[in-house]
């Protein structure tokens, strides 16, 4: 199964467009012939992966409820993807990484890679903020790396490694503030507010 239609979107890393394509396919396809029904079925896996990439677990679960039961039982890639959804929603990183490493074939590979990288970086950001000290074992299960790799990866990001207690000390990630509105825009807003209050 080559997903030719969305290839260009995937290459450009534009997953919003992939999601829109899948959404429209699911709804419009039903009005037409059976051939379209098969196309829709082949896209369920991609649709679900895209939702995971956008971290939209609620809609991923709802999508699973919509998929017909016989397809759920017969299609192996979908079963694996559903395992990923379950582990992410239960915040179980060990099983998430395990499910992510199960090969699903070349067609799904680019999406799986993107998902793995995103999941890793999201978890990394989270534990940098949430932990003031974390054991190496826990950290390596969060990041899906071996203990030594974890130590080298985190120390390269500035964390300190405490050999005696085998713990790591994370550094919270500074929040990047978005650009503040320009002076002109701010004056325009203020002028609008004053006019409104004068009414």
């Amino acid at each position, binding site marked *: 199964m080559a997903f030719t239609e969305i290839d260009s979107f995937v290459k450009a890393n534009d997953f919003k467009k992939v999601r829109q394509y899948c959404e429209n396919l*699911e709804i419009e396809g039903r009005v037409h012939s059976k051939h379209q029904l098969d196309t829709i079925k082949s896209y369920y896996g991609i649709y679900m992966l895209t939702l995971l990439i956008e971290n939209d677990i*609620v809609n991923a679960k709802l999508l699973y409820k919509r998929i017909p039961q016989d397809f759920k039982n017969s299609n192996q890639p979908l079963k694996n993807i559903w395992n990923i959804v379950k582990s992410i929603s239960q915040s179980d990183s060990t099983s998430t990484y395990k499910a992510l490493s199960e090969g699903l074939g070349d067609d799904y590979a680019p999406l799986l890679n993107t998902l793995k990288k995103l999941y890793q970086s999201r978890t990394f950001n*989270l534990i940098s903020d949430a932990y*003031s*000290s*974390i054991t190496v074992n826990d950290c390596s299960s969060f990041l899906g790396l071996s203990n030594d790799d974890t130590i080298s990866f985190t120390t390269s990001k500035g964390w300190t490694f405490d050999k005696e207690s085998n713990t790591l000390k994370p550094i919270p990630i500074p929040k990047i503030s978005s650009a503040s509105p320009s002076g002109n825009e701010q004056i325009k*807003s203020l002028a609008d*507010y004053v006019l409104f209050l004068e009414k």
Partner: protein
Amino acid sequence: MDSFVIDAQSGNFKQLKNLLKYEEALERQFVALDNILNALDSRNHSLGYLLVLKAKISDNGKNKLTFVDQCSHFFSTFSTDQIKLAPEQFTTLSKYYAEVLHDVKQPIKGIIPLKNAMRALSDNKPYQVLTPIHTDLLQVCILSKCYHVALPIIEANITSINPKESAIGIKDILCFFYYSGIIFTALKKYKKALEAYKFVLTAPASALSAIVVEAYKKFVVVCLIQYGSIQHFPRNTPTVVQRNIKSHCKVYMDYGFTFPNSSISEVQQKAASSAELFQKDNNWGLIKTSIKSIYRRNIKKLTQTFMTLSINDIAEKVNLPKAKAEQFVLKMIEEGEIFATINQKDGMVSFHESLEDFSGSVVLEDLNRNIRNVFDLEKKIRTMDESISLSNQYLKKVYNERKNSPQFDE
């Protein structure tokens, strides 16, 4: 029937209006209806097509799948000008269409046709004018579990209706907000769900409606999920609702009263004792979510009393096993519900004040956005105020009052 076909094919609007008189005749001729449909074109002879489809509603022997296909074709290709001559029949057909889709278990087929119909009946402003088709579309979205399709519609604050053009009634409006509440709840947007249910509760009423009762039951459970206690009625709830509704939802009220002061096991017991009733009302999933929300609220309360707490103590106080407690706290930090850092070396969790810097540009943008919303709201209220003060009813009332009340000397 031939005269009907000839009339339907005419392009003259006056003649088309006369078609309505054929309604009863069509309902007596079930066998001929399919043939008549074949003779008509849904785009050019929309009104005739509509009347034939509507007559088919009362035909209990018809093939439902064919009927669904015929309606889907109609709703995707009709001409707006013609069907505007018969909005009542149009909305009756769309309501029945939604029901038949449920019967044949293919609700997802109806989404695009109904979207098209909704756009046409609301003068191409589906996010500003409410029509009964909005309600049917929401129903189909719920039945097919395509909640994301309905989200833009229910998030847009629709404020105008046009009863003459769209034949909308109070039942459609109540159902619209009831379904909005259900969709918001499914997407876990509990605050918006409560707002939607409040619309149902505060609709002017002189008698209690079943829709309001069901909305209140869900309102109670979502209140428990979001706030841990049942909110009071909004001030503008009609008195007939306030006085009578609690007697219909006694089980839910009792369940809600156990929340503030009891332990989790007591709440679980109370839920299990009325499980059958909750399942019958299709609210059992919500009840389970409300029990899960108790853990969150308890942890949140801990942040207000303690600066630091060991993970073991948290697990004890909240009644969770130790491994799960840390996972739970991590999840709450991820979702921004609490601000804390976990120290695994010492096994302690330190709670912080909100780290939000209220002078940042993000907050400024938020503030700007909310102020602009208020601007738009003010504009809407101003136009409504103008149109009311110019309306006949208001002027008559003012004139009568002036006449009857004594005038004071200037």
